């Protein structure tokens, strides 16, 4: 690989891996990651609309 290609590859990979690590790090650190609350699927009630 040429030095230019190596620089481009490292820069590209660093950008996307850095962004991924930062965003998931924030999500996991927040502790808001999952409140575990689930709502059972139900049919929508048309009476509640409009």
């Amino acid at each position, binding site marked *: *690989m040429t030095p230019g290609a190596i620089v481009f590859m490292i820069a590209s990979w660093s950008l996307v891996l850095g962004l991924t690590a930062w965003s998931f790090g*924030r999500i996991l650190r927040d502790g808001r990651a999952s409140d575990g609350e689930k*709502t059972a699927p139900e049919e*929508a009630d048309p009476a*509640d*609309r*409009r």
Partner: protein
Amino acid sequence: MRAHDGSREAWGTRIGLILAMAGNAVGLGNFLRFPVQAADNGGGSFMVTYFVALLLLGLPLMWIEWGIGRNGGRFRKGHMPGMFAAIWRHPAAKYTGVIGLVIPLVVMIYYTYIESWTLAFTWFSLTGDYWGRATQPEMVAYLRSFQGIGDPAARVHAPWTPYAFFAVTLAINIWIVSKGISAGIERLARIGMPILFLFATILAVVVCLLPAGPDGSTAADGLNFIYAPDLSRIGQPGVWLASAGQIFFTLSVGMGSLQAYASYLTTKDDIALNGVATAATNETAEVVLGGSIAIPAAVVFFGVGGAMAVAQSGAFNLGFATMPVVFQQLPSGQLLGALWFSLLFFAGITSSVAMLTPIIAFFREEFGFRREAVSLAAGIVTALFGLMHIAWLEHGFLDEWDYWAGTFGLVVLAFLETIIFVWIFEPENAWRSIHQGADIRIPRVFKFVMTFVTPAYLLVILLWWGWQDALPILRMERVAPGDEPYVLLSRLVIVFFAVVFTLLVRAAWRRNAYDDRAGFVEALPAATPAKEVNL
């Protein structure tokens, strides 16, 4: 994560939501289209323009679509006609949103067919069915035989083979969608996405460790082929448009599916950070893994010139003909082939189930149908129209749908939603809406980008593609005379879907006595005043 008022489904966990969103975005294009585009457009030049497009087009559209979706969810609208009507109180809003029902249905139908090729080739790899066809022309002939193209006498597959794999693929899709958001789509993402990343990582490592090929080329030469900084091409408009197009397709924006997924969130849920995490996950799959498998492998075995020729012959030839040739020359090739095609299958299925979500939401929310019944009906429609693709693939039936719905239509919808969310809803409201419940503050420069740069970028793409491609394609300038009836029929089916959905939207609004000018009543139970909630 809470549903708005207990009556709609909800995502089970935040990670599950992000994996489902990323699964929607990560598709066949990450592993087949991206390396071809990068190699064709100057490597380093392409990468520079690609990241500019990610910042100016991809991330803003990601936030806009999450914002539109979550706002629609406040009014129990998981489909584009309802989402547009929730923002723009005008009778035209709901009809503008019809495009957000037609596109996912049309794309889902032909995408499921392509997805069935990956399932078939997983099976063919495991059974060694194509073993012995060790040259590129032989594998291309094998692929065309499976697709039912060319001389029937030269076919190696029974005529029913593509139909059988299509039926199985469709059945799996419908089964998953019928299970619902949390138990179906989210569970698929939580299983499928880690498998996808694992398989892609294994393949990337195997490719990088390959010994030098017949002409001495290595995987490093393949990476050099993609990343060589040919900055002389950075001034060419075509490179900027190619990279913008790739960003557009890879993030699955302009489809209606991201919005449908986001509609199952509340204003307490973050969408700013989630949007970044989704885009970043997709980019990791594309740039780090997608760029490290197919092209480097092709360079090792065929040299840079050969790989360039393969890339120019199309992404499907690269994935379904070149890669099997490569696997046949490797130890444990059958297993590696199965890993490659099952990786593509998982990439495909996590996208195709997303495309059905807005359709199912529309019929459930507006007509009160059960999810299972709508899923089954969608399966029957997909099967019926999918048969046309299988039978008439060689006549350009699929290409026509791919262009009008899967290419041009996406840009049209993205442009319309940007105008409606940012300009009609107003930039300040859009900005505040995106930041409700947000875990991060988006740099304020993006408000300017969303307001001016993104719509201008989209408009330039629309005009350029309209001039370069849409007009010649519309005039059938590149269609063989014998194929014209099939192409015409292909377009008529899209028009038919548009008319049917327009009539259904009209019927839904009448059935539920919606008032276009008054807006919807918010589904939130508590303090926030209904109707006048303009974020």
